[in-house]
């Protein structure tokens, strides 16, 4: 039941409890209660819009920073990750397998801002051995949304 609500909200964060109730056959009260609990339990963290900033003509640059860590005595990867994610510029921080240890998604107004963040803040954190910065040049698809709207074939208005 919660799963049905989460699937709907993940697709459309603006779906109201009334609409969700209509879609799932639950009562509005049940839906509201489940949503509140999911929020309290931090199963639902936040509601957001997926924005195509390129179209908004805003100054908005994204970069993925691969971070190699130096394992430190008494300090696990978690505390280094925490040190990084406390920076608001670090929008996403993941522990990953492979050639780097952490993947950090950083935003800034321009390339300089990101480069400055990496060189002056991120690289100086205890435990950070190396950073590999990849600027995102073009977003094709994000969170299941294709940025350039594809031409959708119109259906026949009435088919018996």
């Amino acid at each position, binding site marked *: 039941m919660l799963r049905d609500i989460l699937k*709907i909200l993940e697709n459309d964060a603006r779906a109201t409890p009334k609409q969700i109730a209509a*879609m*799932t056959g639950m009562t509005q009260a049940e839906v509201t209660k489940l949503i509140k609990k999911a929020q309290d339990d931090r199963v639902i963290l936040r509601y957001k819009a997926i924005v195509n900033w390129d179209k908004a003509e805003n100054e908005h640059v994204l970069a993925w920073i691969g971070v190699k860590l130096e394992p430190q005595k008494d300090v696990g990867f978690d505390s280094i990750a925490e040190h990084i994610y406390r920076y608001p510029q670090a929008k996403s921080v993941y522990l990953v397998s492979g050639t780097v240890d952490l993947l950090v998604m950083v935003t800034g107004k321009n390339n300089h801002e990101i480069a400055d963040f990496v060189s002056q803040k991120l690289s100086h954190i205890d435990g950070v051995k190396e950073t590999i910065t990849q600027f995102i040049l073009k977003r094709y698809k994000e969170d299941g949304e294709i940025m350039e709207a594809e031409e959708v074939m119109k259906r026949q*208005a*009435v*088919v*018996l």
Partner: protein
Amino acid sequence: MTTQSGTQKHRKQHISRRANAIQPSGIRKFFDLLSSIDGVISLGVGEPDYTTPWHIRESAIESIEKGQTMYTSNSGMPELRKELSRFLKNEYKVDYDPTGEILITVGCSEALDLTMRAIVDPGDEVIIPNPCFVAYSSCVTLAGGKPVNIPTCEANNFEISAADIEKHITNKTRAILIGYPSNPTGAVLSHQKLADIAALAKKYDLTVISDEIYSKLVYGVEFTCFASLPEMKERTVFLGGFSKAYAMTGWRVGYAAAPKEIIGAMHKIHQYTMMCVSTMSQMAAIEALKGDQESVTEMVEDYNRRRQVIVKGLRNIGLSCFEPKGAFYAFPSIKSTDMTSEEFAEKLLEEEKVAVVPGSAFGQCGEGYIRCCYATSLPDIEEALKRMGRFVKKYKKG
């Protein structure tokens, strides 16, 4: 021939009795009106609002790139028939030999037409539910047969009953044609009701043609494949396709599975009239069967959500609507407005720019009802319901 004044005399064309015997759409006026109005929200569509899943499209594109553009075997690519046989066994517990008991057709529509031409002789009667898909009675008539309509009604959820069928069986009855889940009503027949029909088929030695094109679109109920019922495989022509489950309406791929004598006869007709289904469509169908079925599950879940919204919404605006458990249609009654189905649909279109299909298009028992397709976006469904609500409020009597 040109007369001296320069005008051309129009030749009177001879049209066959066979072609004249089938009626054009009974709602021609409605269609014409629809094409003259802009900005319509249409609940009159008859296909998924999904595009064919990418992995299926990709396999067709690959086959074109590889130059696989020649004819295939008339009965369909052996790999497709083999995959389909495996699929039908897993999904519906029916065993069909891919060599001889399965024919790949140009949509389920061609399968229906071939069946009629293969088993119906002039004067044979074929029992069909009313209301039902528009092609049923036309295909029977084209084959020289006589469609025998069995009324169904809202009170019994538009489910055809064995008892009603039995009343109409004569010594001319050749077959019973059923299509559940149903277009236009969304009705689904339970295992028991199908078993009752099976008993009749056995008693009177009839063939059952079961159009199961909407088999994947069922909500909260079990779907029973007619041919899987005891002793029914030998007297069933099982019709299916890829259009609805895999959003492949434009690809035109369907199938018939039946005893080999029937498939043999259908194959003969098909080889002369169609040769084979499009090669790339068959490649796509193979991928549809072999590939990940997750997209089907998600689509069905999505339809279910919209189904609940539309049925609740129609009832909230004051129309009585039985709960459809299959396909993607709701079939509410508009009798409370004292209008005919066609009047209602035309006025709704003119005044509120919402298109629904008059139930009368699907048979006499559809009069007083409208077909609303919920294979359309939720915002469109909600907006359509809002406009219909205004309309019903204006015209509801008492």
